[in-house]
């Protein structure tokens, strides 16, 4: 049943219907509304039994979830940006111990300069921490992915990070269907841990593993991700069967069938890209789009299949790997190894800069004509850059670039 809701509220409600037993929270924008909503649902008894724990840091937040999960409780937390990096070693630890924690990541840039708006720098920083990373293309998928995430996590005993673009999705108010409790219960069986701290059957969890077995432990972590590649489409099909909509997949293709140029992206930019594709199709360009839902595991085969007929690929990504280009594009190139087609990287929407239909159309058109560089910065203020670089040339030290550029921008106005 559709209701006009803030996405964060809807996520809170769907999390509650997933019946987590321990929820840990440390506030950081833009995920705060989710955990605020959960605190209310726990306090008013909607979500019960559940321990809601206000912790003093993200490290503690995920550590509490880790402990709860190891003790057999379904555990949930949410974070963003600096918070994810603050808890970074626990992120690795949860996956290393194979604990099926589900965490919402309200994607946000990582400072400095401090910036509270959306991009994917946070998720990309920890892409290799052993978690499954699912990116929501829209608010409804953001809601639905959590149900799927718990089931996937617990089946594989592997943590899942549900990546939801900060503000763009988290704070969007729109008609949303929060899966009904009965359906969630039917889809998501109670948590049966693979390993658990139990005084009647004691084990030691978290041993020190030396050179003789560490490689094998890591291999098995990789193997879990490969298993997820198989399970995600199956669970998506199950989800469709029960809830009647397509939420969750390895990837979503859009008008790729005969496309010469295919745009690959993740998250909330997907919708805008699809609109731009429609407009360009109307203008006669054979273009299409692929939205990755699973970034870890990375769906190499599925993506290769989706991109198989294209002559070029444009990766639009909301993060920058300084000194290289884009983390996502590097991964996409892996899917296309052996195929002599160019993969253009377009960095867009960093730190919350809007990714507009117009910009996207310009980008895609240029790419379609192979008139873009390998690495493009969408909507880059070239004047500001040029002035700052000139200053760099004058003097090695010219003060903080950000302030200089702001001053220039004011002057320009």
């Amino acid at each position, binding site marked *: 049943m559709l209701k006009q809701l803030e996405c964060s509220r809807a996520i809170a409600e769907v999390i509650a219907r997933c019946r987590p037993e321990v929820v840990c929270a440390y506030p950081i924008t833009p995920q705060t509304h989710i955990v605020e909503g959960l605190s209310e649902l726990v306090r008013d008894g909607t979500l019960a039994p559940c321990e809601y724990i206000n912790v003093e840091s993200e490290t503690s937040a995920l550590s509490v979830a880790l402990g709860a999960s190891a003790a057999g409780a379904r555990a949930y937390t949410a974070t963003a940006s600096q918070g994810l990096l603050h808890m970074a070693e626990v992120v690795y630890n949860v996956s290393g111990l*194979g604990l099926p924690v589900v965490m919402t990541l309200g994607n946000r840039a990582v400072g400095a300069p401090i910036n509270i708006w959306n991009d994917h720098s946070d998720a990309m920083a920890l892409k290799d921490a052993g978690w499954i990373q699912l990116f929501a293309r829209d608010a409804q998928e953001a809601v639905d992915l959590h149900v799927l995430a718990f089931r996937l996590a617990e089946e594989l005993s592997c943590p899942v990070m549900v990546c939801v673009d900060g503000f763009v999705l988290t704070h969007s108010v729109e008609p949303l269907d929060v899966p009904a409790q009965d359906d969630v219960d039917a889809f998501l069986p109670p948590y049966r841990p693979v390993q658990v701290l139990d005084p009647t059957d004691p084990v030691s*969890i978290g041993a020190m593993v030396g050179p003789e077995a560490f490689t094998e432990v890591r291999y098995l972590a990789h193997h879990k991700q490969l298993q997820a590649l198989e399970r995600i489409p199956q669970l998506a099909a199950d989800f469709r069967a029960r809830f009647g909509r397509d939420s969750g997949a390895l990837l979503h293709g859009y008008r790729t069938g005969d496309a010469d140029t295919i745009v690959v992206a993740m998250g909330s930019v997907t919708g805008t890209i699809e609109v731009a594709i429609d407009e360009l199709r109307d203008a006669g360009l054979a273009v299409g789009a692929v939205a990755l839902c699973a970034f870890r595991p990375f769906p190499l085969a599925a993506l290769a299949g989706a991109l198989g007929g294209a002559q070029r690929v444009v990766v639009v990504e909301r993060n920058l790997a300084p000194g290289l280009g884009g983390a996502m594009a590097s991964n996409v190139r892996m899917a296309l190894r052996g195929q002599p087609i160019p993969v253009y990287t377009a960095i867009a929407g960093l730190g919350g800069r809007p990714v507009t239909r117009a910009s996207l159309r310009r980008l895609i058109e240029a790419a379609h004509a192979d008139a873009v560089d390998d690495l493009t910065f969408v909507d880059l203020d070239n004047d500001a850059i040029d002035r700052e670089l000139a200053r760099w040339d004058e003097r090695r030290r010219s003060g903080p670039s950000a302030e200089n550029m702001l001053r220039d921008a004011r002057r320009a106005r």
Partner: protein
Amino acid sequence: MKKPFAITLDPGSSLHNHTGSWRTQRPTYVDRLPPCNATCPAGEDVQRWLYHAEAGDYRAAWEAILDDNPLPAVMGRACYHTCEGACNRAQLDEAVGIHAVERFLGDLAIREGWPAPAPAAATGKRVLVVGAGPSGLAAAYHLARLGHDVTIRDAMPRAGGMMRYGIPRYRLPREIVDAEIERIVTMGVRLELGVRVDDLPAAMRDGGFDACFAAVGAHLAKRVDIPAADAGKILDAIGLLRQVEGLGDAPLLGRRVVVYGGGNTALDVARTAKRLGATDAVIVYRRTQAQMPAHEDELREALEEGVLVRWLSTVKEMGEGELTIEKMTLGADGKPVPTGELETIAGDTLVLALGQAVDLTPLRAVPGVRFTPDGSVEVGPDLMTGYPGLFCGGDMVPADRTITVAVGHGKKAARHIDAYLRGGAYEPAAKHAPAGFDRLNTWYYVDADRTVQPQLEMARRVGTFAEVHGGLDETTALFEARRCLSCGNCFECDNCFGVCPDNAVIKLGPGKRFRFDLDFCKGCGVCARECPCGAIEMVAEEI
């Protein structure tokens, strides 16, 4: 549970890892010789019997004493307890009152009528014991336990020797002596009193004895010539003490008694004189207090009772109601030297307490028996004389003349006689290494001052022959027993079991002590260091 590979492990799986390979030294449990035992002339295993007493198992404690000494109630009173002088606890607070616990156990046994242990199967061998003093009684008792047929002969009308005719009643009540002798007789030992044995080989031959133990004591009073107006006023100590015990005439001492000598007998006589009604009892001694051979406690009690001592003095002359004494001084060699300075003191009677000599008459003619220059019988390490099968002990042979030495001789002689009768030689077990104070970890022991035995009030002390010292009651005896530090012998405190960082000590259960698990012991040595009583040693590993 299907556990994730490598990171999740089965409990206690480290038991596969035998850390014993780390060890370069290993702990070993030892039993060491506590100083009480080491110094006891009777060889009592004090620590062992206290161990039972600590647990309130008084019967077992008493029986453990009886392994070495058949006279606990006597010994608890009359022994000068060298054990307490050596007790390690004295370096912590005060020595354990071993004699008081022994006396408690001895008295309890008498009160409860506990019998001596049943003798071993009869050997058919017959042994004659001459002298029913502590040494003869002890020998008879041990020989009887070993299954031999024993007859004791004594010239006196009653058994006990010096226990009856030497030590005053106020120190050793006669009913105690009687009870402990009776227990030995009950074992089947024949007691023939009033029988003097003058020819030992003949007595052995005629009685069909396979061996003989002679312990007739030293009854001949040593005398010095002192010019006296009335020689009748000069008595000897041993004769006086016998008179008090009803042998011969009742003693007539007068009001002012002077005792000449510095041994325990001198004090016994002076204190006895007080009890017989003397107003003055003065001891005259040639040397200083520090040189006095008498036991410190005896002197203290005598002084409490009003006995006076003239140190560094000799008796020159006995006059009518007075004596002349000469003051002495200590020479460079520490010996007393006359000063020529004379003094007169009041005195109706002079009692000589200058020591006793052995009556060697019965042994003079025995072939092979030899004597020391100072008039003792020469014996080998097995206490046998030069005459085969004839053993001697107690005051007759060269040794300290105490009841405890005597009892020790009795035991020792019995063991050698037993071996002799079996045609072998007795080999005493090797002694354990000493358990010195430096080996103890005394932090684990609570400070606990010694229990004070009750004493008779002074008025009754000097007026009667009632026993001066009272015994401990059960509570105080238990307390005192538990002050024992158990030097050098495991008392199952569980410290080693508890303090091992590698759980490499196995507790075997009550009374069974512990075992080291060498699969896991890394040889750190914490157990040895923290053993309160020093019963663990670290030994280098052999390759």
